[in-house]
């Protein structure tokens, strides 16, 4: 025998189920008066620094149907590439920007929408620069463990080409699944495909 490492096992995931809204966005689900507002609705205010953008999209299942019971969260750096987090050790992020957003898919169309700012670039652990990106986390009925992915920007071709994650993906044909489409004026569309020819790359982070 040897000494034990004494590590605990992570609590196993279970699906968020069809009623995730009750716990995470109760006002959206019709439970009003318990919390003043749903968390993660507002990421920016008038004093937030950076270029305003909107990100919309849908999460689409293997039959091509948008999920109408999905919950999407995003996490991103501020305009200077700093995270508003106690775990950020490189400097002080913009205090007027939370960096975190939460949005349920519309119950009819499935669309999610975030009003945010374009993030700055952040370093990779080896010192290279990661292209500007937004981390996505997706939960819903039928998803047994939350899915992580990233959205990159279509107008950052050079940075995307040098990005440590994008550049090491073996199946280059799949890289565009991580890049949003621009519809002009700071509006980006990022559809997430759970299956099929355009299955989005999901990350084991």
């Amino acid at each position, binding site marked *: 025998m040897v000494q034990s490492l*004494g*590590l*605990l*096992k*992570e*609590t*196993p*995931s*279970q*699906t968020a*189920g*069809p*009623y*995730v809204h*009750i*716990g*995470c966005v109760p006002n959206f689900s019709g*439970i009003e008066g*318990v*919390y003043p507002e749903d*968390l993660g609705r507002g990421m920016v205010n008038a004093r937030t620094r950076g270029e305003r953008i909107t990100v919309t999209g849908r999460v689409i*299942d*293997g*039959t091509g149907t948008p*999920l109408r*019971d999905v919950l999407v969260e995003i*996490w991103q*750096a501020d305009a200077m590439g700093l995270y*508003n*987090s106690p*775990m*950020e*050790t490189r400097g002080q992020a913009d205090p007027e920007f939370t*960096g*975190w957003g939460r949005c349920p898919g519309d119950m009819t169309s499935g669309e999610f929408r975030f009003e945010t700012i374009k993030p700055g670039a*952040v*370093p*990779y*652990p*080896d010192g290279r620069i*990661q292209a500007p990106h937004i*981390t996505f*986390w997706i939960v819903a*009925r*039928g*998803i*047994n*463990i*939350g*899915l992580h992915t990233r959205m990159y920007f279509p107008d950052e071709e050079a940075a995307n080409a040098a990005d440590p994650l994008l550049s090491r*993906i073996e199946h280059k044909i799949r890289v565009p699944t991580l890049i949003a489409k621009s519809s002009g004026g700071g509006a980006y569309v990022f559809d997430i495909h*759970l*299956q099929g020819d355009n*299955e*989005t*790359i*999901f*990350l*084991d*982070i």
Partner: protein
Amino acid sequence: MPESIRNDQSPAGANFPRDRSWHPPAFTPWYKTSVPRSPKQALISLDGTVSEITGPVFGHNMLGELDNDLVRNFAKPGESPIGQRIIVHGRVLDENGRGVAGALVEFWQANAGGRYRHKKETYLAPLDPNFGGCGRTITAEDGFYSFRTIKPGPYPWPNGVNDWRPAHIHFSVFGHSFSQRLITQMYFEGDPLIWQCPIVKTIPSREAIESLIAPLDMANTIPMDARAYKFDIVLRGRRSTLFENRMEGN
């Protein structure tokens, strides 16, 4: 530029890799909705960068006084929901066994009859006018949390012809890193429906399932008032940054 090696825990390490064989796989056809919603391609591994190591923080000042009291946070003045009064308490820990301070824990559940307060809920059990079904809290320095509620009822759901969910409470937990993000469900000791549930059975091992079953905790029960159940939640641990191969100037 290592000046000296410190023996305290550095905050900057990435999380331990997730043990994917311990969690449910994406494709579990006995839970039918997973079939069209499970990715088919392999996940791409990404050791945590600053984007994953960091995470949002929530302050205690955002909490309302009744946020962790589901018995009172939706009830009309002077009234209470119907059902068995219980307290759920425990600690949020990481895999290193350390308490996770300041973790936002959100919970939601059906009422005592197994009915959710939700537009899309169709079960014929009645709504309880005094029960909303949502609550939240933020862990203390040692990771401790607690809330008061009524014990949820089991409910039938459309999957197999006659599938029932065991009584359960849904939990959403934030750690310090966004990569620690977790949603799970807590079950109650002694419920025979646990071992028949297709969603429970998405978890491969009996040992992992048992880690979701809260024991009755008579020691912390409030006599003549509410029974207690204890539910500890373990988030991913974090590597110490002992001798990382970082380039100078980072």
